């Protein structure tokens, strides 16, 4: 996923795209750090929420590139703590959603985020096929994608015994409709 090629300069600063496409003004952030202070994950992130905003504010292709390649954007849990306490009402999780899809589109995903994306992909595939999430299928597919074969092996038998795992997926009647939703949404994402 990660391309080692030299940085292609972005035609338009990300902050402008963010304003045009999701109507969030990154310039509102005045770097008080309250988001980083409350974010459950800022200690784990390479760039904390306010630092990501700072990089975006500069509007320089190199900085934008750093943002899209950062691990922080993949760790965000969309818990909304930052947004709900931000004095400047910056909707940071909303910006994070945008940055993640942008990072994938431009093939700049952080190597360590591969597993997270693999998980999200497996999750969506499960829905695409059956209309609902099938946990056994999800875990199997995720394990195949990441070779994390041993992860969570201790949980599965216990879950099964407690009647929490269905071996066979439930397929909804409208699964074709779901498949079409996926097809259209994916095409749209590729086009813009």
């Amino acid at each position: 996923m990660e391309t080692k090629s030299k940085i292609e300069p972005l035609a338009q600063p990300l902050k402008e795209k963010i304003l045009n496409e999701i109507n969030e003004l990154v310039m509102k952030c005045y770097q008080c750090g309250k988001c980083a202070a409350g974010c459950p994950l800022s200690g784990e992130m390479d760039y904390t929420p306010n630092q990501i905003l700072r990089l975006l504010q500069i509007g320089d292709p190199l900085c934008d590139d750093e943002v899209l390649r950062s691990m922080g954007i993949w760790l965000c849990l969309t818990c909304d703590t930052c947004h709900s306490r931000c004095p400047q009402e910056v909707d940071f999780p909303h910006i994070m959603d945008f940055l993640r899809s942008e990072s994938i589109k431009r093939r700049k995903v952080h190597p360590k985020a591969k597993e997270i994306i693999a998980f999200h992909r497996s999750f969506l595939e499960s829905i695409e096929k059956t209309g609902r999430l099938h946990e056994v299928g999800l875990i199997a597919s995720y394990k195949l994608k990441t070779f994390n074969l041993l992860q969570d092996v201790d949980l599965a038998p216990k879950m099964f015994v407690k009647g929490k795992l269905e071996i066979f997926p439930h397929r909804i009647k409208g699964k074709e409709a779901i498949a079409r939703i996926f097809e259209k949404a994916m095409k749209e994402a590729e086009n813009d």
Partner: protein
Amino acid sequence: MTKIGYFPGCSLNGTAKEYDLSLQAIARIADIELVELDDWNCCGATAAHSLNSTLAVALPARNLAIAEKMGLDEILVPCAACFSRLAQARYEIKSDEKYRTKIPQLIEMEIKGTANPITVLDFLNKYALDKIKDKLYNKLNAKFACYYGCLLTRPEHLSTIERREDPLVMEKIIYLSGGMPIDWAFKVECCGAGLSVVRTDIVGKLCAKILDDAQSRGADAIIVACPMCHSNLDMRRNEINKNLSTDNEIPVVYITQIIGLALGIDPKKLGFDKHFVPTDKFLHKLQKQTVEV
């Protein structure tokens, strides 16, 4: 008989069976019919909005459209994460012209946004509590730490909860059910939610802080209203305990299970045996202390 739309979501069919069991039991006693949406689909969860914003609206929107077609004005969405996705989709469709035109084409159904998703807390407060008040005959002599997590209290435009930094709705319900809610400091902190599988280490750290605070304040159980919170705090207990000096054994219980107990329903029928962290000690303590009134 009151009729309300019901969107159980994938977890209540799987990892959160006990939530479904206990909720259905309460509904029966309260004489409320939960009408499951026909052929509903997964809301897309974190995966959809992390990767594709259109999908993140379209998947839940299909469910909203189904509810509309069934003539349902309100949909009970017990999973806080599903609730958040459904409510956000409705919000986008109502406030954003772009989605209003795009979504019907995607889901091949009409959608106006008339069906309103509600949380289990709204449901209990608005419909169930009044009807079961007189039947709550068990006094639950234990201390409960009510845990809200993120998605019941945030973001502001979707939350129906007051005092979002220190909410008290669950506490009120617990109090009504004869339990003793405690004041604690990690009610609305994040449990790690979507990183449960891929970054279990992080979930372990975050949940450790939550459980530790509850324990230090003498909680006998943690009350949740979300299957995501539940599975992180319950199923991930081994990982969590790696971050704590002593093993934390506080059970994590759905609010509907507690109400079920207060109604005198057999714990088995409420799915207490389905938890990873054993609940027998807790139930035993309750039984010892339970005074029938």
